[in-house]
C-alpha cells in the first residue's frame, strides 16, 4: 500500500520533473523566443515607436542597436517585432528582410559580400517571381533591379520594408560599402519606406562608416548596456527559474517556486551569483549556470539546492588549460615544470626542446628518487604530445629545415595555472612537487 502510493507520487513527480526540465531548457536555450526583457524598457519603447512610425506613417528611418554580446539586442528586436505583428494594421503591411542571424536575418556572417546580400534581399522580398526564371546575369544587374524596385514605391502607397542587418559591423567591410550606402540612401529619400536596423556589438561602429554613408545614417543609436545592479540580477535569477502560472501540476509549481524564493535569499547562492555577476553581467552566462544546475534535478532530487548551484558554478569557472594538465603523465608534467623554470630563469624568453631536456636531465640526476630516466626519444614523444595539446606553441611555423630539437617554443601556461593543477593532480610524486615549488631545491 505504502509502496504503491510512493510509486504513484513518484510517477506523478517524474511527469512534472520532465515538464520542468522542458520549460526551463527552452527558456535558457532559445533566449529570444519567450524570454522576458530586463532593464531595457526605454529602448523597447524607442524601437517600437520607431518601427510603428515606419509601418503606420510610412516614414523611413535607420537605427543601430549597439550592445555587448549577450546584452539582448536580438531579444529586444524580436519582442518588438512580436508586438508589431500583433497589431492588426501593421501585420498586413510589414515586409521584413533579415540579413543574417537566427531565422531569416541578413547577417554579415552569411552574406559575406554585397552580391550574396542582394540575392538574399531579392529572395526575401519575393521579387524573384517577378523576374520569372530569369537568372541574374550579373551583380550589377541585380543591384540595378533592386534599386529600381525600391525607387518605384512611394511613402503612402508602398509596403514598408524592414531591413535587419545582423552583425552590422561585417557589412561595413564590403567593397565601397555599396549596400549600406544604398540602403541608407533609400531611407533618406522619397522612395519605398524602409527602416534599416543594424545590430552590432562594436562601440566604434560609427567610425567605420564611410563619410557619405555616415552622413546618410540618421545617427539613431539604441544602446543596450546591461545596466542593472545586483538586486535586479537576483530578481532576474528568480524570474528565470520560477515556473509559470499555467504549469499543469500546481502544487509542484508552488513548491518549486517557493524553493526558488528560498534559494534567492540563501547566502551561498547569493555568493555564487555575486561571483558570476562580477565576472559578467551577460544573461547568457547566467542561463548557462542555471542550465548546469537544472540538469541535476531528478525524480529523487526534485528541487534545486544551493549545492547544485555551487557545483555548477565550480564547473563553470574551472580553468580549461588546467583541466588538460590533469590528464597528463608524470613525464609530461615534469617537462612542463622544466619549462616553467626556464621561463623564470630567462624571463619569458623562448626555449627549445634541448633546453627542456637538459633541465629535465638535471632534475633526474640530482634530485629524483621516484623518477625513471627516460630515453631522449621518449621524452621527445612526450614533448610532441604537449605540442599537440597546444600547451606549448612554436614561435614560427614549423619548417622542414629546422631540427625538431631546436625549434623555439613558448609555454602557453601561466605558472599559477601549473601550481594549481599540481595541487589537484592525483598521485603526484613528492619530489616532483618539491621541484615544481622551487627550481633551486635540488641544489
Amino acid at each position: 500500500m505504502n509502496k504503491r502510493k510512493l510509486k504513484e507520487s513518484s510517477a506523478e513527480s517524474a511527469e512534472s520533473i520532465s515538464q520542468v526540465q522542458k520549460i526551463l531548457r527552452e527558456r535558457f536555450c532559445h533566449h529570444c523566443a519567450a524570454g522576458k526583457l530586463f532593464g531595457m524598457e526605454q529602448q523597447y519603447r524607442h524601437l517600437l515607436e520607431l518601427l510603428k512610425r515606419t509601418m503606420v506613417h510610412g516614414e523611413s528611418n535607420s537605427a543601430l542597436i549597439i550592445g555587448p554580446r549577450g546584452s539582448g539586442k536580438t531579444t529586444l528586436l524580436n519582442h518588438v517585432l512580436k508586438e508589431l505583428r500583433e497589431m492588426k494594421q501593421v501585420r498586413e503591411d510589414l515586409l521584413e528582410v533579415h540579413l543574417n542571424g537566427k531565422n531569416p536575418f541578413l547577417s554579415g556572417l552569411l552574406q559575406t559580400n554585397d552580391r550574396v546580400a542582394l540575392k538574399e534581399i531579392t529572395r526575401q522580398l519575393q521579387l524573384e517571381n517577378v523576374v520569372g526564371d530569369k537568372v541574374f546575369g550579373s551583380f550589377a544587374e541585380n543591384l540595378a533591379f533592386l534599386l529600381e524596385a525600391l525607387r518605384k514605391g512611394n511613402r503612402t502607397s508602398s509596403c514598408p520594408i524592414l531591413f535587419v542587418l545582423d552583425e552590422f559591423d561585417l557589412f561595413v567591410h564590403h567593397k565601397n560599402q555599396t549596400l549600406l550606402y544604398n540602403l541608407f540612401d533609400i531611407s533618406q529619400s522619397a522612395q519605398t519606406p524602409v527602416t534599416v536596423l543594424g545590430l552590432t556589438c562594436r562601440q566604434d561602429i560609427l567610425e567605420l562608416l564611410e563619410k557619405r554613408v555616415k552622413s546618410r545614417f540618421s545617427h539613431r543609436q539604441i544602446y543596450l548596456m546591461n545596466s542593472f545592479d545586483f538586486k535586479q540580477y537576483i530578481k532576474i535569477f528568480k524570474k528565470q527559474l520560477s515556473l509559470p502560472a499555467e504549469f499543469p501540476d500546481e502544487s509542484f509549481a508552488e513548491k518549486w517556486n517557493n524553493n526558488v524564493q528560498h534559494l534567492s535569499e540563501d547566502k551561498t547562492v547569493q555568493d555564487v551569483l555575486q561571483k558570476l555577476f562580477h565576472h559578467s553581467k551577460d544573461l547568457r552566462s547566467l542561463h548557462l549556470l542555471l542550465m548546469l544546475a537544472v540538469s541535476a534535478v531528478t525524480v529523487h532530487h526534485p528541487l534545486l539546492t544551493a549545492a547544485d548551484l555551487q557545483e555548477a558554478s565550480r564547473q563553470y569557472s574551472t580553468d580549461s588549460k588546467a583541466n588538460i594538465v590533469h590528464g597528463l603523465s608524470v613525464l609530461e608534467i615534469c617537462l612542463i615544470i622544466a619549462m616553467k623554470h626556464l621561463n623564470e630563469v630567462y624571463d619569458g624568453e623562448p626555449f627549445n626542446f634541448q633546453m627542456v631536456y637538459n633541465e629535465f636531465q638535471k632534475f633526474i640526476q640530482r634530485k629524483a628518487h621516484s623518477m625513471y630516466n627516460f630515453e631522449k626519444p621518449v621524452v621527445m614523444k612526450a614533448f610532441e604530445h604537449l605540442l599537440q595539446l597546444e600547451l606549448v606553441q612554436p614561435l614560427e611555423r614549423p619548417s622542414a629545415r629546422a631540427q625538431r630539437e631546436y625549434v623555439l617554443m613558448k609555454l602557453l601556461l601561466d605558472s599559477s595555472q601549473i601550481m594549481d593543477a599540481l595541487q589537484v593532480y592525483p598521485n603526484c610524486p613528492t619530489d616532483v612537487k618539491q621541484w615544481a615549488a622551487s627550481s633551486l631545491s635540488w641544489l
Partner: protein
Amino acid sequence: MNTRQQSKLIYSWYGKPLGSDRKLRTSQYKGILITSESSKTETCIQVGDFILVEGANADQPYVAQLMDLYEDGAQHKHAVVQWFCRLEEIPQNKRKLLKREISAQEVFFDQVLGYDTDIAAETIIKSIMVLPLHLGEELPLIKLNKEQTFYVKQSWDGKCFKVLSPDTFSKLKEANKKRGVITNSSKAFISSDILTPVKKEMESVVRSATKPKKIDMEIESKHSASKSSLAKERHSQRVANSDIKTPTARKKLELNSPTRSKGRLLGCEVLGLLDDDCDAIAPLEPSATKRKVKFTSDILGSPPKIPCSNDKSKSTSETAEHCQRFSDTMRLSPYTKVKDFGDKDRNLREKDDFPSLGGYQKQSSQSPVLTPRSRRTCAQKTSALIAEQISLLKSHGKLAAEEDFLSGSDSSYSSSSEEEDDDDDVPCTPEKKTKSSRIFSTPKSSRKSAVHTPAKTLRKTVRTPRNATPEIPKRIQAAQEPASVLEEARLRLHVSAIPESLPCREEEFQDIYNFVESKLIDGTGGCMYISGVPGTGKTATVHEVIRCLQQAAENDELPPFQFVEINGMKLTDPHQAYVQILEFLTGQKVTATHAAVLLAKLFSTPGPKRKTTVLIVDELDLLWTRKQNVMYNLFDWPTQRHSKLIILAIANTMDLPERIMMNRVASRLGLTRMSFQPYTYKQLQQIVSSRLKGVNAFEEDAVQLVSRKVAALSGDARRCLDICRRATEICEFTRQKRAPEMVRMAHVTEAIDEMFSSPYVNAIRNASLHEQIFLKAILAEFRRAGVEEATVQQIYHHHVALCRVEGLQSPTVSETMAICSRLGACRLLLLEASSKYLHMRVRLNLSQDDVMYALREE
C-alpha cells in the same frame, strides 16, 4: 541590320540632278542608290519613300519619310526627312496621354520642332512602308515582315497627340500609292528590257494579269501584297531599278502608265479592303515580275551560279502545274481570306523559292473554276507536292549557293513562324477554320505544325518581358496622415521631404542653372565639377536645377534635353557607368565594353534627331580606375563637336581633380568648378525654420542650438534635420498630458547627447566588476612598462594583484581570457588573433585618460 554593319555600303545618286541651287551650291536628286559590296545588291530609294534611319539604338532605327535629296558644295550627300517617332521615343510620362494600347508597329507623325530634319544620306538604312490609318481603325493584321511596315494614326508635337489632319493623311496615302506605281513601272519595264526567253513569257503573263476580272484581282493583290512585303523582294526591285537607268527605261515607264493607273485603282481598293478584312498589306505590285527580275539578275550577275539556277528553273517548270492548281484552290475556296497562316506561309515560301511561281499563278487565275470536290483533292495534292518541293529545295539550297536567297527564305520562314505565334495569341482567330484548312494538308505538314505549336507556346509561357519591372507590393492599409503638430513637423523635417525651394543655396543654384542653360541654348557640351562635404545640398541643388530646366523646356523656353543620372555608389563597378548611361539614353542592355563603344560612337557622330544630354555623375571619385579610362571618356565626350553632352560631376573633395586624376583627365574636366561650403549655423537655422513654416512645433532657441551644434561639428544639413526629428520624438515621448507641446531646449539637448556622446565611457561604466578591474590592470601594466601594449599574461598578473587588494577571489586564466575577448568584441580593446592565448597582445582603443575618467567617477 547586322549584315549592314558588317558589309560596306556605297551610296550613289540615282539619275541626274533634278535641279541645282547656284547660291547654295546644292543639287537635288530624286533618288539614291545604296549598293552593298558584299551581297552585290542595290537598293534605290526615291524621294517620297519611307525609310529607316540609323538611330542611337541599333535595334530601333528611326522612321522617316524622305522629302528631299541633295548634294552640297562639299560633295556630302544630304537628305531632308519628315520624322515619325516610335512609342519608345516619346517620354514615359507622356505615353499615358494616348489612353490606348500601342502596338510596336505604330508610329506617330512627328511635329516636334526641335529635331534636325537634315540628315546625312549615309544614315539611311532601307525603305519601308508607313500606312496612314484613321484613329478608330484596328491595326491590320500583318502577316509578313513586321519590321517593314508601320502604321500612323496620330501626330505628336512634343506635348500632345493629335489626329492626323486630312491633308497629311492624304499626302501619306498618296506617297504610298506613288511608291507602288513607281515600283510597278520599273518592274514591268525591266522584264521587257533584260530579256531571257523565260522572262519574256512571264512578262506577257504580267500584262495579262493587269487586266483580270475583279475576283482575280482581289486574290492576286493579296498574293502580291504578301509577297511584296518581303525585304528580299524590295532589294531585287531596287536592283531592277538600278539596272535600267537608261532613257529607254523611262520611256517604257511612260508606256506602261495606263496599266499603272489600273494598278493604282487596285491599290485603293485593297486599302479599302484592308480595313474590313484586317488582313494585311498595302500597295501592291503585280509581283510576279519582281521575282523574275531577281532571277535574271542572278543569272546575269554570277556565271558560276548558273548551273544552280538551271536546276531551279527545272524544278520551277516541274512545279508550275501544281502551283497552278494550288492557286486555283486558293481562289475558289471560301476560306481564302482567312487562310491558315501556316499554309499560306508555306505558300509564300514556295513562291520565294520559285521565282516564276507568281507568274504561273496568274496564268492559272484565268483557268476555269473548279468544283469544291476537286478543289479538295487538288489541295491535298498540291500541299503534298509543295512539301516535297520544300524538302527538295532544302537539299538544293546549299548547292544553289545563293546566300541572299537562302537568307531571304529563312527570314520569311521565321517571320511566318512569328505570325503563327501571333495567331495563337489572338483569341479571336478562327481556330476552326485554321483546323479545317489543316485537314486539307498532308499528314506530314500537319504533323509539322503540330510539332511547332507546342514548342512555341512553351517558349511563350517561359518568356518574360525583357524589362520586367519589379515592384514592392502595395500596402493594404492606407498610410496614416500626420495627426498632431509634432507629427506634421517630423514629416517635414525628414530629409526626403523635398522643399519647394532650397534656401541658402540660391547663388550656387543660379550658377549651375546658368551654366547648363547657356550650354543648352548653344547646343554644345561642357563639364562642371561640384564639390562639397556630405550633406551640403550638392545633389539636391543639381536636381532642383534640372527640375527647373525641365519645366522651362516644357514651356518651350529652352530646347528639350535628356536627363541622365548615374551614381558611383550605385554602380558595382566603374565600367557599369557606360551600361547605365546607354540604357538611359537608348534602352539597350549591353556589356560594359560594348556600351563604351556605342556611346563613343553616339557622342562623336552627328546624330540627326538627338537632343542635348545632361548627365549627372554623382560620387565621381568612385569611378576611379587605375587607367582612369571611365573618367577620361566621360570628360572627353563633351569636348567633341557633336556630342551635345553636359556633365555635372559631383564629389566630396575640392581638390579631387588634382589629387586622383591624371593630367589629361583633369585637363578635360576643365576649370568650371564650384564648391559647396558647409552650412553656417544661420543657414542651418534658416533651413529648419523654412521647413517648419506654418507649424509651430519648435522653440526658436532650440532650433538655434541645434544649428550651432551641427555647424560646429560638420555643417551637415542631414544631421541637423535628424536631430530635430529626434527631438520631436523625445518631446512626444516625455509629455504626459494631451496638451500640445513645443520642442524645447531640454529635448534638443537630449537628442544631441544621444547622437554625439561617446559610447565608450558609458560602456565602461556599465561593464562588470572584473572587466573594470581588467581595464585597471591594463592601465597599471602600461604605466609599468611605459609602452601602450601588453600581453594578457602581464595584465593577468596585475589583475590578480588588484583582486587581492580588493579582497576578491582572483579569476582563472580562462575567465580572464573571456573578459578580454568580451572587451575586444566591443572594441574597447584591440586584440591580436586569439590563438596566441596568453601571449596575445592587447591595446586600448580609447585614450588612457578616458578609461581613467570612466573608472574614477564611480
